[in-house]
């Protein structure tokens, strides 16, 4: 398999560029924005993951790039060629865009054998049969499908079907591969395996990938760049760790993982924000917007940011609590904490290593101000 030229990898020009993409539907309940002024860049060798709940517009964006749907406004270019432009009334059909795609339902043609499925992209681009089959054989070997070329898709297991879909997508050596929730139909074990293979195939081949999912763990594991979408808008772009640890707003924070939440009033806003909440006076970091004293703010805290100890700790962001309940989560436990606050007891969730505390025990919580997020 040919490894892509390193100079190409270093090239800054985007493989896919979307600008100002918009699409709206008129429904009974008014206008729904599937895409609302979305712009996106995907560079060679980069894996961009579109993340969001169903109906956030991520699939519409992917299908618009594939040419299976048409936006109503904006511009898309692939490999520097404009494939869609609302202003110029220009639209290139999917078969001329030269992209590859892995479909959610695999979309393997049931009347074609495995090798015919995989060589189809080459055959339809006028590669002669012998060469196309040779190439398909190489790719099949790479994804662990050796010797299955003559089978029909219906004779394969779900995981094998998924590998055929993957092999078909990379066989054409396309610079761009689109993934439409490809792992949502396979079971957990196969999912992890194929996910790792996708990462290593991308490293090897250097294609630009766009991957749609609603699973934030899958997204975090795959993405070089994570794009979080909500109601047709891009709400945050960044590396997964940044998006998880420094969310732009409450929606992203909530979507990326579990958190403890409350509301409060700002007492003082300097480098750190001091706010009065049902949890007591907390000191946190402002993550979005601007606040001044007296404003109402949201305060959020990831369970793993609660540091627990058996010794009393210093303020700010320190509480005494009782371990109310432990929930086994595999590598660690989730603790439900009963905390004595100034306005009465409240509950927090925390993560801790297994066997570190027992139910009913008294402990102290300490939260770093950087981990105490304040949203305007």
């Amino acid at each position: 398999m040919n490894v892509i030229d390193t100079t190409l990898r270093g090239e800054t020009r985007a493989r896919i560029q979307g600008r100002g993409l918009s699409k709206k539907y008129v429904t009974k309940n008014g206008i729904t924005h599937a895409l609302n002024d979305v712009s996106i860049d995907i560079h060679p060798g980069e894996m961009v993951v579109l993340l969001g709940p169903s109906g956030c517009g991520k699939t519409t964006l992917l299908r618009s790039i594939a040419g299976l749907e048409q936006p109503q406004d904006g511009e898309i270019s692939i490999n520097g060629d404009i494939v869609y432009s609302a202003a110029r009334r220009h639209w290139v059909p999917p078969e001329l865009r030269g992209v590859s795609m892995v479909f959610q339902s695999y979309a393997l043609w049931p009347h074609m054998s495995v090798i015919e499925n995989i060589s189809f992209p080459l055959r339809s681009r006028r590669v002669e049969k012998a060469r196309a089959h040779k190439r398909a054989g190489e790719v099949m070997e790479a994804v662990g499908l050796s010797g299955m070329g003559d089978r029909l898709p219906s004779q394969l297991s779900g995981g094998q079907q998924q590998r055929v879909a993957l092999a078909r997508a990379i066989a054409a050596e396309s610079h761009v591969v689109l993934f439409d929730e490809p792992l949502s139909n396979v079971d957990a074990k196969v999912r992890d395996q194929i996910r790792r293979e996708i990462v290593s195939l991308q490293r090897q081949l250097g294609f630009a990938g766009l991957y749609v999912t609603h699973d934030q763990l899958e997204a975090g594991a795959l993405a070089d760049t994570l794009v979080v979408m909500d109601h047709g808008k891009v709400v945050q772009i960044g590396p997964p760790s940044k998006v998880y640890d420094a969310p732009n707003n409450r929606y992203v924070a909530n979507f990326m993982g579990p958190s403890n939440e409350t509301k409060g009033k700002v007492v003082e806003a300097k480098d750190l924000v001091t706010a009065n909440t049902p949890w007591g006076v907390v000191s946190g970091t402002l993550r979005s917007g601007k606040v001044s004293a007296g404003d109402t703010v949201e305060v959020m805290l990831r369970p793993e940011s609660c540091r627990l100890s058996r010794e009393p700790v210093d303020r700010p962001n320190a509480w005494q609590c009782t371990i109310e309940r432990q929930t086994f989560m595999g590598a660690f436990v989730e603790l439900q904490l009963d905390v004595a606050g100034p306005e009465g007891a409240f509950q927090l969730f925390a993560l801790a290593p297994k066997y570190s505390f027992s139910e009913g025990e008294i402990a102290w919580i300490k939260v770093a101000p950087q981990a105490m997020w304040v949203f305007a």
Partner: protein
Amino acid sequence: MSALALTRSCRKRMFKMPDFRQVFLGLVIALALLIVGLILYPILLTLVSTFVRNGALTGAPFEEAVAARGFSTILYNTLIYTTGSLFLSCAIGIFLAWANERTDARMDSLAGILPILPLMVPPIGSALGYVMLFANNSGIGNITLRYVFGIETGGPVSILNFYGLIAVSSLSLAPVVYLIVSAALRNMDPALDEAARVFGASPRKTLWKVTLPVVGPAIASAALLVGIHAVSSFTFPFIIGTGAGITTLSVHIYRLFAIFPPDPDSAVAVSLALLLLVYLGLFFQLRVARAVGRAVIGGKSSSTATVKLGPWRYVVRALFIVYLGAVILPVVGLAIGSLQPYLGAGPSQFSLDNFRTVLGNFETRDALINSFSLGALAATINMAVAGILMFASMRMLKKSGHLIEYSLMVPAVIPHIVLAVALIIAFSGPPFYLYGTKLLVLIAYCVMFIPEASRAASSAISQASEELSEAAHVAGAGLFRTLRKVVLPQVVNGLLAGWVIVFFLAVNEVTASSFLGGLNSAVVGHVAIDYFANGRLSEVAAMTLIVTVVTAAVVLAASGIIGRAYASRR
């Protein structure tokens, strides 16, 4: 009721009540045996009486039938007619299905109308209407065309030839293909088409390399089904073929009975040949039908892939309209024909005399009354029988009930003409002497249309929730109480739809009616064929129009519930 009283009541019923389930099942089995007997007895008896002579098996009837003058021409005609209708109706049906399911020319109303279209214009109305319009010299359509375009010679359109016969038959058969292929396209994962496009195939290549091959088994299944319909079709070849000098196997069988003296042995031999042809088709049909289930690999369908036709979509929509028009057109022909004193008469001679004759003449009036009452009776009997048998087999007997379900489907694979021949031979003579009675016609309708009744009943019952019945049983309701209070309200619409379908088919039945009807058992199909053979076309037109309008009105009134029941038949 206190808990104690409840227990006491249950205990009392437990020991004192006879087991109604057993009684009911006994009844069901008796009924099933009666139906199976009515199907098998005539056929077996006919075979024995024809092919056993003096206690020995003989092939003489075959030899006589084949030796008859023109038999090879008849076979050839049947072959041409069947393959021609098969290809044309598939072309129309596949095109309609593809255009309506996969392109932006889609018209939702078409998807609603097409499945019940065969129930709007019966074959006799369609065939006769086209003859009225486009008979070479005297067709009102041809006369109008000649007048408008100033043509001096005959024509310009001629329906009385192979092309016309095949075209008119195909118009009626196309919805069968449409139903099967459009269902296959709907079940097909649209991502299969999308994937082909993304991987470099043009829309045209996608259609030929992916869409059509994927629904290929469904297309093959539909084609064979249409072929079976065509090879055993009687109405079209008789009405159109007679004027064109084309005789097919089924018309030949009719003629063998209509000549004097009748030649039942040859008729049976030819029927058997026809039956073998049908089973050959059926054998392949079952094989590909099994492949249909395998072909569709499940997937979540996100949105229907549409092919953008651009301005072509108006052309495609125009073709939809042309097709619908071509199906409705013969009714116009019938209407005009029924006003003429003779075929080819001008508007100045139009009158309602034909209707006066048809409603005044005792034979035609009897035929109308008999057809409607026998149709209603057959529909009622069939839905009651099918409802009870299907419920028993699907809900109570489960696996072992399949035998009942299969046997109810048997008449569907026996051409009506063959069934009519068998019924006449089995029930005419001793000990029944039923020839020429209404009872024999009723038996024929019931046996012929039990498959349609069973399909409707089975789809109604399978849509009713079994859990609701189980809940009723747990709540203390017995079998009959559950049937009456829980099951019946759920299935009544489906059964009603089945009633309308059977009523329509029976009233418009021509094939068996033409054999079994007589002076004392005049029915529309019989009188229509009789009058047609004697050239009394205008009266046939008036009578057929009355039947078409009445049955279409019944179908239309019940179209909401029929759409669902009819669409589920395969």
